[in-house]
């Protein structure tokens, strides 16, 4: 049973550039959530996608956008990168309607903005 996978593992960008991160959910899951974890901090919720629509959003600017595909995989896009966007980006998947919606996390993508 494949778990949550993310790509790439590491990424280095410069300020002002744009980046796309990818996530494939755990087999059987239909919901994908994205979190940002800055160094030494707990993960912060960015947004959640279900049925190809943004279901819930945290306190992140519009530079952060996402997409969910019919196969439930998801992308996180960040435009006009800032130094402060350097972080570990975590994807989590879950299954709606199971009464608990436990989220399972992938290994993350480490983004460095120079």
């Amino acid at each position, binding site marked *: 049973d494949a778990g*949550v996978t993310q790509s790439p593992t590491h990424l280095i960008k410069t300020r002002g550039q744009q980046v796309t991160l990818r996530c494939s959910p755990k087999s059987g899951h239909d919901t994908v959530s994205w979190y940002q974890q800055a160094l030494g901090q*707990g993960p912060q*919720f960015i947004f*959640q996608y279900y049925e190809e629509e943004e279901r819930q959003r945290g306190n992140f600017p519009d530079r952060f956008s996402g997409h969910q595909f019919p196969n439930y995989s998801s992308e996180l896009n960040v435009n006009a990168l800032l130094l402060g966007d350097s972080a570990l980006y975590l994807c989590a998947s879950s299954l709606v309607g199971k009464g608990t919606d436990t*989220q399972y996390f992938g*290994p993350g993508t*480490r983004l460095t903005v120079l």
Partner: protein
Amino acid sequence: AQSVTQPDIHITVSEGASLELRCNYSYGATPYLFWYVQSPGQGLQLLLKYFSGDTLVQGIKGFEAEFKRSQSSFNLRKPSVHWSDAAEYFCAAGILTGGGNKLTFGTGTQLKVEL
């Protein structure tokens, strides 16, 4: 505002000693509660979860947690720590609604195990 607090930033214990990591939450209603563990440079692994029912929850790797509604707490315990338990531990809470189930995390507790 919803929040999760982990009062201890760092904890050091000797191998074989018992462990308790503290977690307090502030929510309008009783949330679902989770403990995750993160090894350096890795993602989060689910240790255990509480939704309802028995307030003492058993998890993987010999961990357990106790939900105390009166104290708004969900502390993680282990009777005998192993060197491989050294990692960062995160408490998280969420409310399941029709509009989503975002998790709110604490800032984490870094566990060091002395041999």
